[in-house]
């Protein structure tokens, strides 16, 4: 999560400097939850449908940092060769699907990946996770996928980060239930709720949900409560977020909380944390520098082919 925070801070400042192609959507405040799920999953074994606030989880899951910098900086060597951008990157055949923008739409894709593995007899011990936000919970896509996963009893863990806002929209314009975890009952699946600003708590709850899914317990819904500590995107100053919320327990920065927790528990020392941050900064710097040197996509070199069966291509 240190790496993620460092990378995203860098991306945000590159954005401000006009060096980024497209928008920048980052996840400060959500690293604890996101890294928790990412670290419970194994690359090329489990499945992780990450979304826009998931740099923490992406890094923990094992996404190469160059995927990020290449995407944001418009290198043709990025995972999608400049065809798609910033956060829509993945390695679908390594358990890491590439998100589309339509909220809620990736949950059923992760469900389908799990479903395939069951048919192929290789589902044992596998978990698929999918992230969504409070806003995405209002989509029909979310509902259909949750219900389908429940009916098919798939080992799906849905991490719902309730960061109090969908863009500018507060939760009271998004849902009327006490907590979104109450949806679990209506799907007949397990529900968990956690303080997402608390790394240790998040790790514990997410690990349990993942273990339960792995053990055959069916779909799990984890609702993490926290506050988005950035704008919706870097273009947004988030001035609509009330001070009272920022100063509430929800507004704690999970990074600061985690540092204190780790220090207090004696897991890490201050110098170790500093060393970690320095290392992350160097890694980020290197990945940015490399991506910046790489070529941008060239329309004359792109094949513009949209079909996998290239014999179907018509001239255009």
């Amino acid at each position, binding site marked *: 999560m240190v790496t993620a925070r460092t990378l995203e801070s860098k991306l945000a400042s590159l954005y401000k400097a006009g060096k980024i192609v497209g928008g920048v959507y980052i996840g400060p405040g959500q690293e604890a939850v996101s890294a928790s799920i990412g670290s419970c999953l194994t690359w090329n074994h489990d499945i992780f449908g990450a979304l826009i606030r998931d740099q923490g989880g992406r890094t923990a899951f094992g996404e190469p940092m160059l995927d990020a910098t290449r995407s944001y900086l418009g290198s043709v060597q990025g*995972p*999608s*060769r400049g*065809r*798609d951008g910033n956060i*829509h990157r*993945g390695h*679908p*055949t390594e358990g890491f*699907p*590439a998100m*589309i923008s*339509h909220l809620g*739409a*990736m*949950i*059923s*894709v*992760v*469900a*389908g*990946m*799990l*479903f*395939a*593995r069951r*048919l*192929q007899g290789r589902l044992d011990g596998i978990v698929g996770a999918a992230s969504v936000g409070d806003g995405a919970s209002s989509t*029909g*896509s979310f509902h*259909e*996928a949750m*219900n*389908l996963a429940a*009916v098919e009893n798939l080992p799906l863990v849905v991490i719902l980060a309730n960061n109090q806002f969908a863009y500018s929209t507060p939760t009271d314009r998004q849902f009327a239930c006490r907590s979104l975890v109450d949806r679990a009952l209506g799907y007949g699946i397990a529900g968990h709720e956690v303080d997402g600003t608390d790394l240790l708590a998040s790790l514990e709850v997410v690990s349990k949900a993942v273990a339960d899914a792995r053990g055959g317990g069916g779909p799990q819904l984890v609702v993490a409560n926290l506050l988005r500590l950035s704008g919706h995107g870097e273009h947004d100053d988030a001035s609509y977020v009330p001070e009272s919320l920022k100063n509430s327990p929800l507004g704690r920065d999970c990074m600061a909380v985690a540092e204190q927790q780790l220090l207090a528990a004696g897991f890490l020392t201050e110098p170790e944390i500093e060393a970690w941050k320095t290392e992350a900064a160097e890694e980020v710097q290197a990945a940015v520098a490399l991506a910046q040197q790489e070529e941008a996509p060239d329309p004359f070199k792109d094949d513009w082919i*949209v*079909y*996998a*069966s290239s*014999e*179907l*291509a*018509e001239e255009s």
Partner: protein
Amino acid sequence: MGEVTYIDAIREAQHDLLAADDRVFIYGQDVGHFGGAFKATRGLKDLFPDRVIDSPISEDAMIGLAVGASIEGMRPIIEMQFADFSSVGFNQIVNQAGTHFYRTGIPAPITVRLPSGGTPGSGPFHSQMMESIYAYYPGLVVVTPATVTDAYSMLIDAVALDDPVLYCEHKFLYRWLKSDQLKDDEEHLPIGQARIVRTGKHASVVAYSAMVHEALRAADLLAEEGWEIEVVDLRSVKPLDTDTVMASVARTGRLLAVGEAFPWGGVTAEIVSRVTNDGFHLLDAPPQRLNSRDTPVPYHPNLWEAHRPTLESISAAIRNLLQF
């Protein structure tokens, strides 16, 4: 006329696909023991219990599931109960499946079966032709089999293809259309190629799906008056086989494009545009189009028959075309 119906061909193709390839599974509402609303999967659940699966009524998630499964190497067939209901799976079809290969380089080979087109008394929500909607979007393949043997072989080929395919099967043909064979290896054409189903020299009628048969009937009628009408069955509307259409127009100098779909845009407009763009000099008369009327598909048979092209309106359009 033989004994094999168009719906038999769809059922047999699915049987043969399931039997030949473990990667194939069928997911859809009531496709299990019930055999599907139109019996296209009759008996398949008994033979392949794990791979013929009743879905909840969740078209969006059904397509999402198929895309996910395809990424993992499966070859899902999704049955929509009616093409019309794919409107709620639309986003996953066009934005998830359609863009996947382009964005990631990883194929998403799903086949979505769309029971399409009108039958009397079915009304606005059980009669739609949706091929033009899907053909608009990059990355999708859209096929429209018009014969029993094409219904069979194009479904086999659709599932074999590495791209997402919308397989538009016409409900009117299900039990009405019969053949004495299921496959025709000699006449087999790959997806993307049109077929000249009747040769002629005075005009070309380009049609697809159920309208091929109406066009053939019109050609028969006009033959009695001494006109030789060529009929082209497009077979797939995307990709669209411009070469075959153009060659036909080169022979006849006249073009009528016929579709059962709504008149704005769509297949017939695409055909006419392509032909006039590249084959303007071949034309001896203004190319014509005939589509349904620009209203929802009406429920009452009296209105329905006046809504879509028929033997009479196609014949009239051909006569009109021949008069130039």
